């Protein structure tokens, strides 16, 4: 015990020492400016330093990585690339910025960049974009949704984000072959779902006796997104977004909406009857555990992933008829439009930005480089690589070459180790998503929700101004803890649903109205850009 404390202490102390040392040097670097980047007016390449997180541990990016090498050539630059593994990137990002001596280009989370950008660590890009970057102008400033999601709390753009290709996120997936065995239709309403789940529970679906199958899988432990079925009531209970949602043009706190009570009552009933995994709160990797062992009837999970399991050897070994299919989100009554809140925002979390320490000429060179990455040519580079090497044009469409498709560890690993799909401000192409699907069925399922437009409007993550954030943190921390706790208690029945009104009034006592006011003040700005 003591050794561990000592270790913890040493680590803590070391961390503090680092930040301490970093602070001392920050003045120095900002005073001397940055001398690594001098723009080449005479055609000499511009040298810049950049930090980009790598996707794979055994293929860390270097200036010789396929895409970055090509990018440097195309934009007449020389890159000095610093990197670390993606999983350590968030921490590394803060440490590097705090040190004061960070590279000219920093890739990191959009939220982090905006936060530090407002504090003065990164250049505001609006003017640079207007003057030098037509592609960035087109996809960010002129696209209201993207602009609103990219802008920081002061309304300026500090980061060029990754634009995602398809909205599909978690879908409602079900064992179609079992539905056929039972002679049942795809469930549409919540009542249909109840009948189907009940049938999965009471019939011997997998040959291990009735009751062996867990009818519905919800992932609390990994994704913390498990209230998918609230879709039917038009509510999004997303703890990762502090449970905020947009309703009638303003931000409301979803847990205190009357629909939440009905939703929770339904879930409590399903839980009590064993239709939901009784251990969903603590079970990690619950989807793989159940699906690979042939014990899941339905799940709310990443559509493409679940569809891909249809061809998993492990799954087929258990039941060669296994057929997971994504179906429309549930509704309350027949005839209502099925919609889900689970979706990828068009603006992804990965982004990159320009250090506030660079001189103007370098900043211009960098914004032009950012612009190139957003161009059609640049998009091809970061989605498909280099023509004739990693892809070929077939009938005007890019197709991955045999080298890429038959690469030793599979296509995705090949792409990631050669710097495609890097976590930077790039545009993901739908063709990439389609081309990386294992087969037509997976492709069809992945695009199903997009083609049918099964999506509610996105509930945006609204960042607050600095002062508002302070006030928000103080009041919201206990509220969030309370809601996290009570939602689960209602679902597993340790708190009766009759007490829902007490739950609501407790949240009101804790000051939710003030928090909604803070959120709405910022949401107004977001909505204005969105107009």
């Amino acid at each position: 015990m003591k050794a561990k404390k000592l270790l913890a202490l040493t680590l803590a102390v070391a961390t503090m020492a680092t930040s301490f040392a970093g602070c001392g040097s920050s003045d120095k670097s900002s005073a001397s400016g940055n001398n690594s980047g001098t723009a080449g007016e005479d055609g000499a390449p511009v040298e810049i330093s950049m930090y980009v997180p790598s996707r794979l541990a055994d293929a860390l990016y270097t200036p010789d990585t396929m895409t970055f090498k090509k990018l440097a050539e195309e934009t007449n630059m020389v890159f000095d690339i610093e990197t670390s593994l993606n999983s350590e990137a968030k921490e590394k990002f803060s440490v590097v910025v705090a040190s004061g001596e960070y590279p000219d280009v920093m890739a990191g989370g959009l939220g982090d960049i905006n936060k530090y950008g407002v504090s003065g660590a990164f250049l505001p890009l609006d003017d640079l974009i207007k003057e030098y970057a037509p592609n960035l102008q087109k996809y960010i400033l002129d696209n209201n949704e993207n602009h609103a999601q990219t802008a920081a709390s002061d309304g300026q753009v500090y980061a060029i984000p990754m634009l995602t290709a398809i909205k599909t996120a978690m879908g409602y997936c079900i064992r179609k072959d079992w539905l056929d065995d039972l002679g049942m239709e795809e469930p549409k309403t919540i009542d249909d779902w109840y009948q189907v789940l009940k049938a999965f529970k009471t019939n011997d679906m997998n040959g291990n006796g009735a009751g062996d199958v867990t009818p519905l899988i919800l992932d609390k432990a990994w994704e913390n997104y498990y209230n998918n079925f609230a879709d039917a009531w038009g509510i999004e209970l997303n703890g990762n977004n502090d449970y905020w949602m947009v309703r009638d043009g303003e931000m409301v706190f979803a847990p205190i909406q009357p629909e939440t009570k009905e939703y929770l009552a339904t879930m409590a009933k399903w839980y009590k009857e064993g239709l939901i995994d009784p251990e969903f709160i603590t079970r990690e990797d619950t989807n793989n555990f159940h699906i690979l062992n042939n014990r899941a009837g339905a799940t709310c999970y990443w559509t493409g992933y679940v569809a891909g399991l249809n061809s998993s050897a492990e799954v087929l070994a258990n039941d060669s008829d296994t057929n997971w299919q994504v179906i429309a989100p549930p509704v309350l009554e027949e005839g209502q439009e099925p919609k889900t809140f689970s979706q990828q925002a068009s603006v992804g979390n990965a982004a990159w930005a320009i250090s506030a320490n660079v001189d103007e000429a370098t900043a211009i060179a960098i914004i032009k480089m950012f612009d190139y990455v957003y161009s059609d040519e640049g998009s091809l580079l970061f989605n498909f690589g280099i023509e004739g090497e990693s892809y070929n044009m077939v009938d005007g469409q890019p197709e991955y070459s045999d080298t890429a498709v038959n690469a030793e560890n599979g296509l995705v690993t090949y792409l990631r180790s050669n710097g495609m799909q890097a976590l930077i401000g790039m545009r993901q192409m739908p063709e990439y998503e389609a081309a990386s699907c294992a087969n037509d069925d997976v492709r069809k399922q992945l695009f199903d929700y997009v083609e049918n437009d099964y999506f509610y409007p996105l509930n945006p993550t609204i960042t607050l101004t600095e002062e508002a954030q302070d006030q928000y943190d103080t009041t919201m921390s206990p509220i969030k803890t309370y809601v996290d706790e009570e939602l689960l208690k209602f679902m597993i029945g340790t708190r009766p649903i009759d007490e829902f009104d007490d739950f609501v009034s407790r949240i009101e006592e804790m000051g939710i109205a003030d928090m909604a006011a803070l959120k709405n003040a910022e949401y107004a700005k977001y909505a204005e850009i969105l107009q």
Partner: protein
Amino acid sequence: MLTKIKTELYRNRYLYIMILPVLVWFILFCYLPMGGMVIAFQKFDIVRGIFKSKFVGLDNFSTLFRDPYFFRLVKNTLLINVFGLIFGFPLPIILAIAFNEIRQKYFKKISQTISYLPHFISSVVVMSMVIQFLSPDAGIVNKLINAFGHESIYFLQIPKYFKTIFISTGIWQGTGFSAIIFIAALAGIPKEQYEAATVDGAGKFKQMLYITLPNLAPTIVIMLLINLGSIMNVGHERIILLYNPAIYETADVLNSYVYREGIMGGRYSYAQAVTLFQNVVGFILVAGANKITRKLDGTTLW
């Protein structure tokens, strides 16, 4: 005066040279970074750094004390530590004495090694094992309960079980290792005392009561004092690995709350304020207890 110091330095120069690296280590890694504690009184901004962040006085502390969950967090922290001390503290002493009484040398070595092995297993592994063992579906504990004809119990979803599970895991993992210091103290007891006692006709039990325990007393007191210092601290890693929102009621402690709502949200100043609060309370307790023990039997930390 100065010459006195000089002669002293010169006379024991080798000793001073030997301690120099340790001193440098302490200054570099313990005392200098303590300056960082100042962020508890600031609104720390990572870009502005320690020197330029705005001072906000005791704001971070008042945020903590006004938090609706403050009392629940302190209560859980204290209960886990107090029960941990009551049940966990005597065990290493008993274990050490028991080992000391084993005459069979190999058996002693082997069982001692086995007893402190759990200490070297990562908390992540231990907590996953606990979750597996307690699983209502396939866990060995519930299989036993089923075998006796009872329904499975969802241990990790029912608040009242958490402290017991958490503390007993800690005891299982730490007892053997904590016993080492007592075993070392036991080795230092002069054999003559036992021989004299045997001559005087004292049995094993009387020897333990009148020789072993009094000799161990200073070590026991010092260990107790050190433990008191961390009475407001429950390491957040082990809690976070084991808890879930459904049992926050008994499982959420200061460290886990601060980790969740402070560090994760980038509120470093607030997190530092909480740590400072915990350590000040710990320090007051240790200082107070130190005074008491000094009066009682003269054993002190300083």
